[in-house]
């Protein structure tokens, strides 16, 4: 553009003018050198533009990856939704049950960049801890996932009973979760287990949910006192030696089923949240790139104009 302007100004300046090549090199040399007022650097802006464009590409790719992982796991989560319904139909749902030993099982992801779902789970876990605190009561945490562990270890280190990470190294299946549930039940004393996870409602909405699993003793106590579990006594128990044994098996089975569903739903929510986080990130990067491009062009045009002015004033000084 500068060259065309010079050509238009014409032959008058042909002699004193330096040829096009040195002009460009002088521009570049001045840009890279420590700056005076004369030449404004476009190199810094260009570097920033390159890095922002790379970030945009990376976040777009991460969004695609999260979308494909979501598709894979969404069908499995939907299919596992029928698993916890029979238990709630039989035993009801008693989140406000009053027990001595509460265990809060918080489910979170291992990897980051997934929006706010892990913070939500941790906030609710801490709130439940507060809600179930009281004299002679104790509340412990069992943490699944790296992110919740990092957040909870800061202020509740002594309350963490067990923490498990790298859950999704192999694709989630029921066997793995049932072994995990068995582990938890063996090592932790509990009257009520509260599982906190993000239920996958849709790609943009995740509902923090809490499922409650009661130990067999608490179930018997609640059944006797009436209320929601009141008609549990009307159920005949088939098989097993005693009612207590069946209820024990039932509680363990319920825990592993509910945990399986919870882990799948949380994994879905994680991928969905990552998709929307990466989407907004690439959109922001695009906007930043637009702004930087404008700055770059302005800077570039200003430096060309400065050069032009110098040349022209130099030439007119020579003339007149």
């Amino acid at each position, binding site marked *: 553009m500068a060259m065309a302007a010079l050509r238009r100004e014409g032959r008058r300046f042909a002699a004193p003018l330096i040829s096009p090549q040195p002009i460009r090199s002088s521009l570049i040399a001045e840009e890279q050198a420590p700056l005076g007022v004369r030449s404004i650097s476009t190199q810094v802006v260009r570097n920033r533009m390159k890095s922002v464009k790379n970030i945009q590409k990376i976040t777009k790719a991460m969004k695609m990856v999260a979308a494909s992982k979501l598709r894979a796991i969404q069908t499995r989560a939907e*299919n596992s939704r029928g698993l916890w319904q029979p238990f709630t139909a*039989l035993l009801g749902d008693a*989140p406000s049950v009053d027990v001595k030993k509460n265990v809060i099982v918080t489910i979170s992801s291992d990897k980051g960049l997934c929006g706010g779902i892990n913070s939500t789970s941790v906030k609710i876990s801490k709130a439940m801890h507060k809600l179930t605190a009281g004299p002679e009561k104790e509340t412990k945490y069992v943490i699944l996932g790296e992110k919740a562990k990092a957040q909870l270890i800061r202020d509740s280190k002594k309350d963490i009973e067990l923490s498990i990470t790298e859950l999704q190294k192999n694709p989630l299946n029921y066997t793995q979760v049932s072994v995990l549930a068995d582990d938890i039940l063996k090592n932790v004393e509990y009257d009520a287990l509260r599982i906190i996870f993000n239920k996958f409602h849709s790609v943009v909405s995740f509902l923090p949910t809490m*499922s409650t699993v009661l130990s067999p003793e608490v179930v018997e106590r609640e059944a006797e006192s009436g209320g929601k579990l009141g008609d549990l006594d009307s159920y005949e128990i088939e098989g097993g030696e005693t009612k207590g044994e069946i209820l024990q098996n039932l509680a363990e089975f319920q825990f592993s089923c509910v945990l399986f569903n919870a882990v799948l739903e949380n994994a879905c929510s994680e991928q969905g949240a990552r998709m929307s986080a990466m989407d907004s990130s690439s959109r922001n990067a695009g906007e930043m790139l637009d702004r930087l491009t404008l700055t770059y062009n302005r800077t570039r045009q200003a430096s060309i104009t400065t050069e032009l002015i110098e040349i022209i004033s130099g030439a007119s000084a020579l003339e007149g």
Partner: protein
Amino acid sequence: MFRQASRIFARSINQQPKMMGRAFSTDVPATPTVDSTFVESWKKVIPNMEPPKTPSAFMNPRPPTPSTIPSKLTVNFVLPYASELSTKEVDMVIVPATTGQMGVLPGHVPTIAELKPGVLSVHEGNNVTKYFVSSGFTFIHANSVADIIAIEAVPVDQIDPSLVQKGLAEFTQKLSSAATDLEKAEAQIGVDVHSALNSALTG
């Protein structure tokens, strides 16, 4: 002009409730129930945060207990990775409880039964579908709804008899050579499952 405005206004009001109900078809119940005592106690201690949802908000509503015995049994047969049968109306199911094969008809007494590996057969009219289930639980409710939860289930015609024989031989051998109690228990479970498979194929 104002007539148009009131019509458009009314339309926008009508559209709003419809928009609110859009969710997964697998999920939304007809009347979501919320545990009010929990919500209240939550609000007292933590007023700034929304309480978490509980499973009762996502339950599909169950039919109420009828006064007369219904003619059909509603069966929900679920596995961890699929819902085999959901709210299917059948005449009878036979479940392999630990105390033996148990037949369930509409109007059965409410029961909780633990299952052992065996054959589950679903009778509907003249069709009988047989599944081999690994263990699980069965709940029969007063409203003639039967929930069968199993870990694994295969239709009986998909079982390979030669593999069953091989497995049975292998586990019997392991049982006889087992040293620790744990190994003995595992081998015993293997033997039980395979002999049940065997009888499922023959019986």
